[in-house]
């Protein structure tokens, strides 16, 4: 715990979590004011997160926990506990700043008045739940916010709810996440019930690995639990479809912040994992990195290309976590947030303003975009900074993080299992793939010179500003003084080498940055020039494979189809058996009434007839009135019946109390 002065400042109320929530409450204001109030609360949240960040400059290893008693049943205790430490504060800062930038962007992007309020509601709900997730300490509250994050992502994917495809994309994301969440919940329950560990901070002190009973199953459950949220290998298919949502939401949620929640979870759970689990995690990450990079190459829609690139980069983060070097994972998370957000926002501008009139509206194909003359150079600079940062060229922020990941992998590859070498090679390959698809992205957006453009063309400043900020923050100079995270404190790209170089593999550590940079640059040039040709002639089948995402989605839908066939078959069988029973009953009925030749309906008809004869005519007037009265009572609406039963209940209640 810190000194009393700091501690008094660190009241729960200052946590940035609450400001988006306040913003939601202020959404009741008229819609012309709503965007200012929401932006104001986002700004306050950003300032609050900055305030917490500066604490860590004076006390690098500060951490604080607050418990709010919540559920306290005999034998089971779950607190709502918040924890503040350097990792959560740094990621909260990223969430706040990206949300703020996206907020500015969407003021202009979401133009229709009716959609604005809805969008702000979803956006602020997302920001609230994401910040809550970051600061949560207890498993139960973490899981609560985890689900809220998934839910707000679902809402934002299905934002344009009149379109069919965005609805099905939202459902797909939700189902994929649910599969994973079940595993996560099972893991948490095991930890709470069997291991008597109910929060993340107890995890690091519990000596978990030694208790063999739990460690045989729980780590696997937790690994799978984090996969879908970060779109990692077997559960990755939802992310490309999630681009059906509005572009600012894609930039915020499906590129910069929400998808990194899985990485954050794995960082928090590192004490649970032993070597074998880390190898599995690393393989899943490396495979996703390759898979995402490969699928990105074949895409012609720029947003989908970026989505696959996100899968690839998240794979890199998972690899970094698996080397138990969480610092490099967080640095990559941070740098990736800015350049990928910038790229998405650029894509949003391009899709709105740069589309040529001649091409088809719905398809973002080759050479569809034409940059207007007055923006051509400005945009080239912005996109180049962002893309070079994505590929990891020196002097950009991406270089720092990618290099530190590769170096920590190299260290692992030198010392442990030979599987780490495979992971290392796969990761290097993904660097090459990153270069190729980045080049292709530049080609798709920039290459077309001869299309119709309108001169005197103006893009709103609200759209440009966030892109500019993102690309400026993608330069490495801003992140070299990042000494919150301890070891990487003065990350200039040369001094980084001095810190992370392991003594055994010294020579490789010097060659490695050169190799990876050459790979990235080479890939970039290849990607830009080869896209020029209409098709890669000899590699046709590779491109089809890439466009179809290795047929994994087909495989899943095949499995689904088998199950639905099976269940419809069983359904038919059930129906036949059911109908058989009904007929059985009829046969039974006819057997009973056979002696006196009356069916039930015949008896009823007979009784009605006799009643009609018996009632004298002077009663018929009363009967008519009664009929009308009963008609009002018996109007077929369930609510009326419920209403009368409530009145009857109240009368009974009065009668008893008299």
């Amino acid at each position, binding site marked *: 715990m810190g000194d009393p002065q700091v501690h008094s400042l660190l009241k729960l109320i200052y946590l940035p979590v609450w400001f988006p929530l306040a913003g939601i409450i202020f959404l009741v204001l008229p819609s012309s004011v709503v965007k200012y109030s929401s932006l104001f609360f986002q700004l306050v949240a950003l300032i609050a997160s900055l305030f917490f960040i500066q604490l860590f400059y004076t006390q690098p290893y500060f951490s604080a926990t607050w418990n709010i008693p919540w*559920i*306290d*049943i*005999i034998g089971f205790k779950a607190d709502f506990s918040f924890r503040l430490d350097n990792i959560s504060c740094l990621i909260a800062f990223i969430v706040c700043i990206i949300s703020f930038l996206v907020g500015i962007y969407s003021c202009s992007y979401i133009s229709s008045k009716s959609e604005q309020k809805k969008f702000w509601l979803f956006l602020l709900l997302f920001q609230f739940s994401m910040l809550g997730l970051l600061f949560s300490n207890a498993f139960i509250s973490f899981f609560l916010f985890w689900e809220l994050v998934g839910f707000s992502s679902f809402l934002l994917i299905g934002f344009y709810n009149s379109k069919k495809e965005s609805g099905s994309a939202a459902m797909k994301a939700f189902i994929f996440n649910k599969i994973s969440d079940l595993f996560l919940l099972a893991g948490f329950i095991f930890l709470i019930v069997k291991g008597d560990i109910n929060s993340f901070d107890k995890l690091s002190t519990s000596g978990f690995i030694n208790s063999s009973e739990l460690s045989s199953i729980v780590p696997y459950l937790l690994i799978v639990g984090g996969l879908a949220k970060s779109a990692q290998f077997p559960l990755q298919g939802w992310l490309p479809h999630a681009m059906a949502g509005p572009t600012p939401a894609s930039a915020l949620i499906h590129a910069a912040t929400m998808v990194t929640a899985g990485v954050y979870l794995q960082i928090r759970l590192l004490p649970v994992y032993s070597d074998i689990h880390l190898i599995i995690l690393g393989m899943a990450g490396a495979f996703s990195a390759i898979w995402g990079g490969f699928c990105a190459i074949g895409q012609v829609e720029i947003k989908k290309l970026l989505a696959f690139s996100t899968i690839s980069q998240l794979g890199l983060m998972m690899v970094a976590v698996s080397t138990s070097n969480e610092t490099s994972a967080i640095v990559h998370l941070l740098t990736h947030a800015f350049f990928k957000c910038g790229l998405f926002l650029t894509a949003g501008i391009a899709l709105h303003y740069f589309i040529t009139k001649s091409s088809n509206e719905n398809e973002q194909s080759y050479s569809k975009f034409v940059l207007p003359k007055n923006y051509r150079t400005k945009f080239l600079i912005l996109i180049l900074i962002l893309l070079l940062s994505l590929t990891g060229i020196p002097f950009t922020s991406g270089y720092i993080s990618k290099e530190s990941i590769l170096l920590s992998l190299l260290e692992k590859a030198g010392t442990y299992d030979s599987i780490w070498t495979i992971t290392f090679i796969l990761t290097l390959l993904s660097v090459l793939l990153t270069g190729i698809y980045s080049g292709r992205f530049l080609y798709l957006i920039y290459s077309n010179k001869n299309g119709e453009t309108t001169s005197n063309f103006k893009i709103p400043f609200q759209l440009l500003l966030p892109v500019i900020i993102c690309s400026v923050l993608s330069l490495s100079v801003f992140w070299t003084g990042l000494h919150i995270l301890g070891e990487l404190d003065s990350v200039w790209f040369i001094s980084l080498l001095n810190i992370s170089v392991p003594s055994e593999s010294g020579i490789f550590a010097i060659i490695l940055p050169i190799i990876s940079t050459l790979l990235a640059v080479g890939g970039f040039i290849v990607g830009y020039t080869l896209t020029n040709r209409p098709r890669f002639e000899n590699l046709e089948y590779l491109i089809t494979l890439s466009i179809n995402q290795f047929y994994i989605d087909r495989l899943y839908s095949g499995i689904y189809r088998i199950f639905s066939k099976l269940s419809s078959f069983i359904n038919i069988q059930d129906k036949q058996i059911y109908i058989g029973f009904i007929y059985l009953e009829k046969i039974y009925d006819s057997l009973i009434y056979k002696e006196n030749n009356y069916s039930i309906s015949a008896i009823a008809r007979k009784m009605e007839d006799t009643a009609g004869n018996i009632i004298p005519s002077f009663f018929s007037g009363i009967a008519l009135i009664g009929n009308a009265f009963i008609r009002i009572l*018996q*109007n*077929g*609406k*369930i*609510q009326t019946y*419920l*209403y009368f039963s*409530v009145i009857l209940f109240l009368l009974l209640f009065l009668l008893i109390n008299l």
Partner: protein
Amino acid sequence: MNWTYILSLILFSTGLYIALSRRNAIVVLMGIELMFNAAAINFLISETEPGEGQTMILFILGIAAAEAATGMAIILNLFERFSSIDTSDTTLLK
């Protein structure tokens, strides 16, 4: 007098009013959920042992979730049959 009873009373009467007066079946379902929550609060404030009320709340939450799922399924079927979820259109029970 525990003032939390007032909260539960307000919740219950609001829920009852909604369930009786609204014509949209989904809103009726929401009213029923409100009444559920009022009952849950009553359990919480009238517990005799610590933890008893919370246990009941967990049960109620589970039941409410099941009820909501059933209710939504009924509403879906209603929509399939009448192509409307207005309760004044569905008067077959005369």
